[in-house]
């Protein structure tokens, strides 16, 4: 069983990396990677929300939705759970740790309706993963997304100094870069077969 958990973890972080293999979460990916500082902040917030959100959704799916045959309401309920949880976290953080709130608070609002945050519980539900497997998928996806953000941010910071043709400056060259990194990530495929 633990072997399977580890497999899921590595597969979700590298082989099925959300950004480079599944092409999800691209809006945030391009939005926050202009600076290393913001991408690290986003990475932490994202991974934390992903883990807690996946756990909450697993509990609700397993103990409420399956007994009541409500599998078809997955998307609606998962979004509601994540939104409520993020909003609560936002309020609590503002009171308890204002410093952390001002650093990460702006990302929380962006995360609520993010597609990766929704994709992780959906995959968990679809594959009928156990709690540990769900957590492994959430952690792996979070770290995989963080890896993508940090790779991209470090390149884009260097890109500021590069002599890019005017029509390619900004987003276009970032798209090209993302394509090249995605190509590199293809090298992981086939490493593990699930």
């Amino acid at each position, binding site marked *: 069983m633990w072997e399977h958990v580890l497999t899921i973890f590595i597969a979700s972080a590298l082989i099925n990396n959300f950004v480079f293999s599944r092409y999800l979460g691209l809006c945030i990916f391009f939005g926050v990677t202009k600076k290393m500082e913001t991408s690290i902040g986003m990475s932490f917030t994202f991974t934390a929300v992903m883990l807690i959100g996946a756990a909450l959704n697993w509990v609700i799916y397993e103990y409420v939705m399956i007994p009541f045959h*409500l599998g078809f*309401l997955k998307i609606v309920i998962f979004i509601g759970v994540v939104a409520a949880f993020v909003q609560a976290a936002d309020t609590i953080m503002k009171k308890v740790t204002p410093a952390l709130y001002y650093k990460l608070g702006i990302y929380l609002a962006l995360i609520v309706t993010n597609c990766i945050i929704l994709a992780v519980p959906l995959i968990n539900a679809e594959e009928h993963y156990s709690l540990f497997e769900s957590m492994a998928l959430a952690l792996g996806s979070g770290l995989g997304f963080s890896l993508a953000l940090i790779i991209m941010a470090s390149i884009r910071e260097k890109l500021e100094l590069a002599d890019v043709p005017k029509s390619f400056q900004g987003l276009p060259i970032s798209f090209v870069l993302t394509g090249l990194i995605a190509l590199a990530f293809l090298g992981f495929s086939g490493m593990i077969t699930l």
Partner: protein
Amino acid sequence: MYEQLSGLLIQILSRAVHIFANKLVPLVGVGGSVETLEKVPWEYVVFGLVVLAALGVVFGVALAIVAARFVVKTDPKVDLVRETLPGANCGACGFAGCMGYAENVVGNPDVAVNLCAPGKAAVAEKIADITGKKAEKVEPKIARVFCQGGKSLSQRKFIYTGVQDCTAAVLAAGGDKSCEYGCLGYATCMRACPFDAITMSADNLPIISKEKCTACGKCVAACPKQVIELAVESKAVVISCHSRDKGIDVKKKCQVGCIACGICVRTCPVEAIKIDNNLARIDHSKCIVCGLCVKKCPTKAIYDYIPVRLKAQIDPAKCAGIDVCAKVCPVNAISGDPNAVHVVDQSKCIGCGMCAARCPKKAIDMIAAAQQVTGKQATVSAGA
């Protein structure tokens, strides 16, 4: 009565839901790893409604409790200021968005109330009211074009047929205009302006609308010749030339360039003009916008943005014949014997306002002369 009615209503509703669930939606949940069902069991619909409602109630109550338990007291002034601000989040104030400025202007006593460029004076006054800070005098700024040498008044080095954009034209040997300091006239600033405040005149020069310009500085950044600058709007007399060429060269290239002859320097009653590097420059902290230099400039390189100059008029009832006005008048338009009522020669008066400022009896008013108003407006609409 009520029980009967509500009972009836519930019956109708449940019947409707039943029919809907059984007949009209024969298959639900196709795809997404949900098993296809031939018929939707009646309970599933009820479960769905109940569970969603319950989750909604639970989340709502939980959020309400959290919000009440972890309430953070914010200064209501911050929200008031935030509503006053234009909300463009342009960052001209130097803070992260309008909310950042609102928080800082309320929380930090050193942050001035007049930092919002798009909001101008009106917003600054409102913020001063809310925060109780003193509203410092806001000098509204406007973008000014420092070139009058349009197509008809200046020379061209060669015929440029490339991309019709200043940034492109400037790559070709610095542009086709023989004056290397002047406006190229390919309207890059017009396209850069987010407020449509810039139009191009028939003579290929940008005209900046006083009403629409917010002094955001986009055109200043866009102009490859640095011909546009932000200037204080009330200082309406401007040397509209950037040429640092020698006078003789300027004359060859452009009819309205500054030739650094120095007449304006000698004319200026407050010594606000200096010539530096072959170009006259007005020190706007000294300038009283009298417009004398505009009249005297031989090449008309100095531009007066005041469309209608008022004329001095002496109120005979108040005039005590003190003679200060006659002495101070730079064009000798005022005459009169000492201790007698003085008269302004309207044809000589240039409307500089110096006599009105100096009169101890406040007997001089600046009044628009009727025929002059129409005359000056005609030149303005002609595209000056």
